[in-house]
């Protein structure tokens, strides 16, 4: 092989791998990304049951109901509207009424959100960005709230 041919082989195989990678990325993006919504979005857009989404908001005060077999139900609100959520398992340390949470899962039958992941904020200075977004959208967020806890 000449030098030129060799270089072409090299570039050719590089491009081939790159093309495969781009294909994989595009395919994966279509299949596996998770959209983020606020409770209002979900109620307005009627998110179809079965697709994975993330929801951010505050745990509605007085909405937490625990049943003995580690099932927990609560409502997530952005101040405008709220959706009921069901979860099985142990909730994080900072999961409390009135605190910001991000939940991930699917819309179940009967309009109850079946969460498989519940993330609470990590410490009192930090509010999940998605929760802030949801609250800002519904007008409940005021700048400076985060700084003063």
């Amino acid at each position: 092989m000449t030098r030129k041919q060799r270089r072409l082989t090299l570039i050719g195989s590089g491009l081939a791998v790159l093309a495969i990678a781009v294909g994989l990325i595009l395919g994966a993006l279509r299949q596996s990304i998770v959209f983020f919504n606020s409770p209002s979005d979900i109620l307005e857009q009627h998110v179809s049951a079965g697709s994975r989404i993330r929801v951010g908001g505050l745990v509605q005060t007085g909405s937490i109901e625990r049943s003995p077999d580690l099932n927990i139900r609560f409502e997530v609100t952005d101040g405008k509207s709220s959706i009921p959520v069901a979860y099985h398992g142990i909730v994080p340390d900072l999961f409390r009424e009135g605190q910001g949470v991000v939940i991930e899962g699917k819309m179940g039958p009967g309009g109850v959100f079946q969460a498989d992941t519940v993330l609470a904020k990590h410490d009192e200075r930090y509010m999940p960005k998605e929760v802030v977004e949801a609250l800002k959208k519904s007008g409940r967020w005021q700048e400076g709230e985060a700084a003063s806890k």
Partner: protein
Amino acid sequence: MIPELGHYALVLALALALVQSVAPIVGVRTRDDALMRLGSSTALVQFGFVAFAFAALVTSYLTSDFSVANVYENSHSLMPTIYKFTSTWGNHEGSMLLWVLILSLFGALVAAFGINLPATLKANVLAVQAWIASAFYLFILFTSNPFLRLANPPFEGRALNPVLQDPGLAIHPPFLYLGYVGFSIAFSFAAAALIEGRIDAAWARFVRPWILVAWMALTLGIAMGSYWAYYELGWGGWWFWDPVENASLMPWLAGTALLHSAVVMEKRNALKIWTILLAVLTFSLSLIGTFLVRSGVLTSVHAFANDPTRGIFILVILVVFIGGALGLFAWRAPLLKQGGLFAPISREGALVLNNLFLTTACLTVLVGTLYPIALEALTGEKISVGAPFFNLTFGPVFIPLLLAMPFGPLLAWKRGDIYGVAQRLMAAGALAILAVAIVLVAQYGRATLAPFGIGLAVFVMGGAVSDMVERTGVFRLPGATARARARGLPRSVWGTAAAHFGIGLTLLGIVCVTHWSDEKIVELKPGESTIVRHYHLTFEGIVPRQGPNYRDQIAKFTVRSGGAVVGEMMPSKRTFVARDMTTTESALMTRGVSQLYISIGDARSDGSIAVRIYYKPLVLLIWLGAVVMAFGGGLSLSDRRLRVGAPKPAARAAMQPAE
């Protein structure tokens, strides 16, 4: 006085860095050796100043000097001394100071131990290093100054975030930074080569120890970060594809590619332009990582800074350095001469393949990390890209890389014999197929992909062993000859084999944990038991305990296996008084390289608690593999050949570029 002196020392470091940014380059242009030498002395004194500033901040932390705003924000007089010390870098300002400390340390190391470097190269490298340092000194002094004072200091600080009060934090960020910042040397070498417009095989040898040091530190740093998340966050996961983790993985992938392409360049004077580009890209990815973590662009549990001015400042640094370096590259790279020829099937070819796959893998991670940010900026739509995306993209790219990996070291330079190599890998291949068959039969119908994962891991490890068997001739030649050959082999060969073996170990751990972990969530009353795998766990009850700055509610578990007590596990809920905040402390029990993992939820009024119990088979292999990889890097670093070229009197000093 001490904090002010520290502050002033940092300012002086900036002044020296500015001098060092210009003088050595002028020296090279005008062939004035005094100006070239200047870089070394300023680099050393600069490091002295930053070390002084860092020591001043540490002193303020240790003495709980709340007149320093940073100490007030992040410390508490009751924290154990070790955490007072580590909280120095447990916050944004302090961690940036650590960043420049390491940056100036590397500059000083080049000045002190780079005696074998050609004078012009060394001068240019130190000048470029000073550019980076100047940018970050300015960043610290004007946007993230840890030495700002409070005129009326309070009597108590606000304490370090309890999640960060952990030994993992003590060593994890420094190692990560050693890695990130270590690649700045590779960047400076590349920029220096571009400025000189001349580059050849010797350059690769000069830069290789620095890449190795950075790569080892980053490998260990990532592994420690992963282990920290595993036991501290209480979810039992060891990798979350969290953007902050990705930010450290990308430089690692690019750095690994750089490590391999530098070998080709050193041995065969080929892939020169590519290597230069990789060196630039690797450090750029480190900077992007810093930007992503420090600017608050990300939604992430790790991002503790959220300040737009800082973000913009780092963005400017990013654009100037990456843009500048790539511009320099576009302008100067065509001047560099092409190097040696090789056939596709050869050691060089294998290393090119390695680079191709590693950079592609890096690309998939980059896309997965940046796509949500870009999409949000462009359309306002918020998405999250999680593990499924990376499993679908990163996985398929990495698997062929691992399959090809055992072939690489066995191929000859220039033109290799693939059939010969395949023959030598027969044993490893047979072992792998056997492993697949055994697991398939044992797990019939349950796990479809796992047996092949195991097979791949066995093949990778077997390949590394075969390589060494082949080179030492251990089974072919008489024992004494084999031993002699083993001793005669360069350490870097042993290093390669060890690092590759480590990858196999990590892979084995990953496959086992992914497919055969047991998870159980139950509610237990005192005295009740549950069974996970072959372990019988009894919840004995809750005991309170008072720590130095927290209170623990410990849940005691007795673990039995086959009727015999094998130990106690004590997960707890820990309440920190200063912040009125609770964390979950999980409990781990190591059995061989597998682990039992308990984390608890809130206690109920009837004394029962929710418990999450995992059995994680071979989980420790994941991190053990990383340690073996880093060990391999260390072996390579200690290779005699990397010290070559040092003038004889200084040979001793040049032996330890890693320190």
